[in-house]
Structure formats: structure tokens, C-alpha cells
């Protein structure tokens, strides 16, 4: 690891609400998030040095998206780093922002993402995503099939009961009823027993709900500048790691850090969290709360195992014993998680967790506030965990 020249502070964040207008273009969505974040932070458009922006590469037909995004945001001739790396790509945008500030090259950087998924006939186009297309999608294996296979294998390997997955979804929904930004905010609370049922409907309800189009943005500045914008800045650190994308290669891939794991574990997330915790100077015992990006309840359970909240295969006990709740020593998914906050795809799947932790360490999370929260961790993934990102937000004042 190289020398980090200065710490990175988060001073603002914004995410578009669920069900944004159908007639908004991706440009409007991206601008809404950017505008909301810089207004939240008290930053002027002219003072932004750089934007790193993830997008869903099937959601826009425009090639060379960098200048198109810069033009929409009104920052030309300032640069935009365009990133197309699936759902967790907005985590990579924050990684770009972090590096630009930590190195001293830039003072104010906006990290963002947008997903206007209904620009295409969603599911058939989505079906390639996260796959090694030549030998799976082209052979009839889709994005959805990957997820089903992983969940089935994880359940079987670690004997995970449906009740644990149902409880996971239930707790996510409990938090979502207390988060106005969540897709399920105004919906009736589900019945726990129904969430635990062995039916296709229950299986669907244990999976992520869709937010529709979504965009998010976060504003980062050098540590010495943070107090110019807010009295309550948050320290931010981030790391990410890869794993080979072909699903067969999730089994005992012959690289040292992965050869002992298979489809039921997330070694990429283990590697990313190790680096993120090191950079942030924290240990597992320091973590007050965790947000994970979970398209299915099982995936969320795998994620909290990978970052060390519980041992491999033991998250079922953690969830069933109340580990996700506000009474726990480390509550999980206070933002509502995939099942209830909703899937933001390239627009927000990483940044939604960061923004929640930002609110939590500032004491601004309302009814879902974790008492005394000073360190929040969040995870996100793309391409079925062949890309894993971990963020750490700490009280910075």
C-alpha cells in the first residue's frame, strides 16, 4: 500500500426518492442527485474539481458518457470519470473520488451513480449482467439463474432455514417503515410467517424490491476543508476486490485467497473488508452498525459473514437471535436493505449504504437511529460478487 497523504471527509449525500417521474431522462436523474448532494453539502458547482460517475451500461446508448455527464451537470471543462461496473460501480466511483482527494490532486470531488433501467426492455437485457457471457448467458444461464443457484447452494451447505431468510426480510421491512427514502416506506408491514413460507411469493418477498430509476451522489473533500462545509463531517474510506466472474470459477479458484472457498462464501468481500478496515484504522469490534447490499436475504447473510460480523454459516443464528435489530450490539440494514429499501442498481446500491451510515454517525437517522453510532460499515457487490466494495464511515468531528 502506498502513502495516504490526507484523510477523506464526506460532507453531503443525496439519493433520489423511489418512483421518480417516468419522463425523467438519465440526464435529469443524474443532475437531480448531483444537485441535491452539493446543496446538501453547501458546495458550489464551480468548486467541484472532479466527478466520478457510475452508470448502467445498458441504460444509455450514448457513447463517451464522460463529456455527456459533465455537460448535464454544468461542470465543463472539468473532468468526469465514467465507470460502468454493475451495481457496485458507484462504490468504485467513490474509490476514484477517495483517491483523487487522498492524493492531494483534488479538493472537492463528487461520487455518483445513475440507473435508468427502463431505457431498455429490462429483464432480457439484464439477463447478461454479471455473467461470463460467452459460456453462460449464451448457453441460456442468466443473471437470475446465477442468484438462484447461489442461494440454493448456500442454504444446502450451511443448512440455513427459511425462517432465517424470512426474519432477515422482516427486519429490513421494519427499518424501511422508518426510512422515508425506502421503497417500502408507505407499504403495509409484511407478516413474518408469510415471509418464512416455502412458496414462490414468499421467495419473491425475500428478494430485493425495485426502486425503478435511481441516482445518488456524495460529496467528498480533503480533511482540512471539511469544517468549511459542515460541523459534522464524516471520515470515509473504501476498498474493493474482484473474483472471477464465471460461476464455475467460484469453486476453489486456484488463487491463494480463494482456493478454500466456493459459491457459499464471498472471498472478494473478505479481501475488500480487510483492506478497508486497515485503511480506516478500525477493527471488527469497533463497528456499530452495518448496511449490506442484499438482492436476496441469503446474500445479505453471506455478506455479514464475509466481513466478520459472524462466522461462516453462522449468520442464521445471528439473525434469528435479534442481531439485526436496534437492540443488537451491531444492527444490520437500518436503511431497509434490498428487500425493503430497494434495488438501486448502478445508481445507488453502494452509496445508499454510505448515505445511511453518514446519517447514523451524525445522529440524523430518526426512529432507526443506532444509539452512539460512530463507525458504520457498508458493503455492495456487482456481477454476483465478482466485484465487492466495502465502505467505512466514521464520526469525523
Amino acid at each position: 500500500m502506498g502513502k495516504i497523504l490526507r484523510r477523506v471527509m464526506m460532507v453531503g449525500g443525496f439519493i433520489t426518492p423511489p418512483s421518480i417521474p417516468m419522463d425523467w431522462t438519465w440526464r435529469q436523474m443524474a443532475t437531480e442527485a448531483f444537485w441535491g448532494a452539493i446543496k446538501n453539502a453547501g458546495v458550489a458547482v464551480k468548486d467541484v474539481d472532479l466527478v466520478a460517475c457510475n452508470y448502467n451500461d445498458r441504460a444509455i446508448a450514448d457513447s463517451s458518457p464522460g463529456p455527456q455527464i459533465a455537460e448535464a451537470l454544468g461542470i465543463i471543462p472539468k473532468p468526469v470519470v465514467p465507470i460502468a461496473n454493475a451495481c457496485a460501480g458507484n462504490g468504485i466511483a467513490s474509490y476514484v473520488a477517495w483517491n483523487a482527494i487522498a492524493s492531494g490532486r483534488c479538493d472537492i470531488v463528487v461520487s455518483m451513480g445513475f440507473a435508468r433501467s427502463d431505457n431498455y426492455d429490462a429483464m432480457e437485457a439484464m439477463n447478461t449482467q454479471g455473467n461470463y457471457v460467452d459460456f453462460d448467458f449464451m448457453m441460456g444461464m442468466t443473471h437470475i439463474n446465477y442468484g438462484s443457484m447461489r442461494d440454493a447452494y448456500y442454504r444446502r451447505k450451511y443448512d440455513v432455514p427459511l425462517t432465517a431468510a424470512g426474519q432477515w426480510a422482516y427486519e429490513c421491512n421494519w427499518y424501511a417503515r422508518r426510512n422515508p427514502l425506502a421503497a417500502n416506506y408507505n407499504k403495509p408491514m409484511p407478516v413474518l410467517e408469510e415471509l418464512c413460507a416455502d412458496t414462490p411469493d414468499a421467495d419473491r418477498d425475500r428478494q430485493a424490491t425495485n426502486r425503478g430509476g435511481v441516482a445518488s451522489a456524495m460529496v467528498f473533500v480533503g480533511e482540512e476543508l471539511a469544517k468549511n462545509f459542515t460541523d459534522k463531517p464524516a471520515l470515509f474510506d473504501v476498498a474493493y476486490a474482484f473474483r472471477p466472474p464465471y460461476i464455475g470459477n467460484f469453486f476453489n479458484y486456484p488463487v491463494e485467497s480463494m482456493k478454500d472457498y466456493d459459491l457459499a462464501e464471498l472471498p472478494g468481500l473478505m479481501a475488500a473488508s480487510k483492506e478497508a478496515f486497515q485503511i480506516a484504522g478500525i477493527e471488527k469490534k469497533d463497528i456499530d452498525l452495518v448496511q449490506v447490499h442484499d438482492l436476496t436475504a441469503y446474500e445479505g447473510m453471506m455478506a455479514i459473514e464475509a466481513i466478520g460480523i459472524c462466522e461462516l454459516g453462522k449468520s442464521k443464528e445471528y439473525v434469528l437471535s435479534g442481531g439485526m435489530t436496534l437492540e443488537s450490539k451491531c444492527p444490520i440494514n437500518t436503511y431497509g436493505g434490498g428487500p425493503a429499501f430497494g434495488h438501486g442498481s448502478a445508481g445507488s446500491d453502494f452509496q445508499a449504504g454510505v448515505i445511511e451510515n453518514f446519517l447514523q454517525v451524525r445522529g440524523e437517522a430518526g426512529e432507526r437511529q443506532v444509539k452512539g453510532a460512530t463507525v458504520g460499515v457498508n458493503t455492495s457487490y456487482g456481477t454476483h460478487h465478482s466485484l465487492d466494495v466495502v465502505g467505512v464511515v466514521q464520526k469525523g468531528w
Partner: protein
Amino acid sequence: MSEQFTDQFVRWDTFSSALWYRTKAGRYRLEGTRCTHCDTKFFPPRTGLICPVCHERAMEPYQCAQTGEVVTMALDDVGFPAIGYGDNMPRIQAIVKLDDGIHLMVDLIQVADPSEVQPGTRVKMVLRKHKREDTGAWVYGYGFVIDR
């Protein structure tokens, strides 16, 4: 729609015949690659790529084992199936560990009852007709059947 082409074509994107051509050895006969430096075997093939184990660039074609056993399986019944499979739905899909240790995700075909397939079930590769490519031509490739 012509009676000759009753299945819906995959028209949302422009996968070309050239793409199918490039992958034919892997699709038709499970040809992967082997690193001549460290002997690690790979599928999908890594022709021309760097070995992630020894970091040399010395791949050669390798014929993967064509028999193996089921590791796990799932029904493709959660909606949004791949287009082109018509009456074969819901398909039974499986992770198969070949006898040389390589893992694949495959279609299990000619299975009357999904309960016939369990972890450890022996399977063997067959060449099968999969679906139509964008040009309307049929795509052939590997599938697996129970090795009775």
C-alpha cells in the same frame, strides 16, 4: 411469424455469428485451456490470457473431462427465463464438478422428475441443440444427462 421460426428471436442486442464461431471449441466439446507452466486447468478457456496462478502466458488447449457429478442444482422457475427455450421450461440447471476438478454451470436435460437429481448424481456431457442465435441459426452446445 413464420412457422419455420416459431421461437422468439433474441433481438435486443446484436450478438453475431462471429461471436458464436469464436467459442465453438468450448461449446461443442468442452475445450478449455491448460497452463503449460504450472499445469493449472481452466474452463472457460483462457486462450491468450495470463495464468492467475503462475502469471505466465503459456496456455494450450485442454480437453476437459466429459463426466462428473452434480454439486448443486436449481429450477429455472423464478421468472424472466432466457429467451429461446420454448417448451423446455422450467429447465433444471446444475453446477457440475467434472472428474478433472473443473466446475461448470449447465442445463441438465432428459430429466423427467427434478427429484432424480441430487448432489453427487453422476452426469455426462452430450451435445444438444440449445436455442436460436440472432441470425435464426440454431445454437448447439454442451448439456448434461444423468449417467445411468
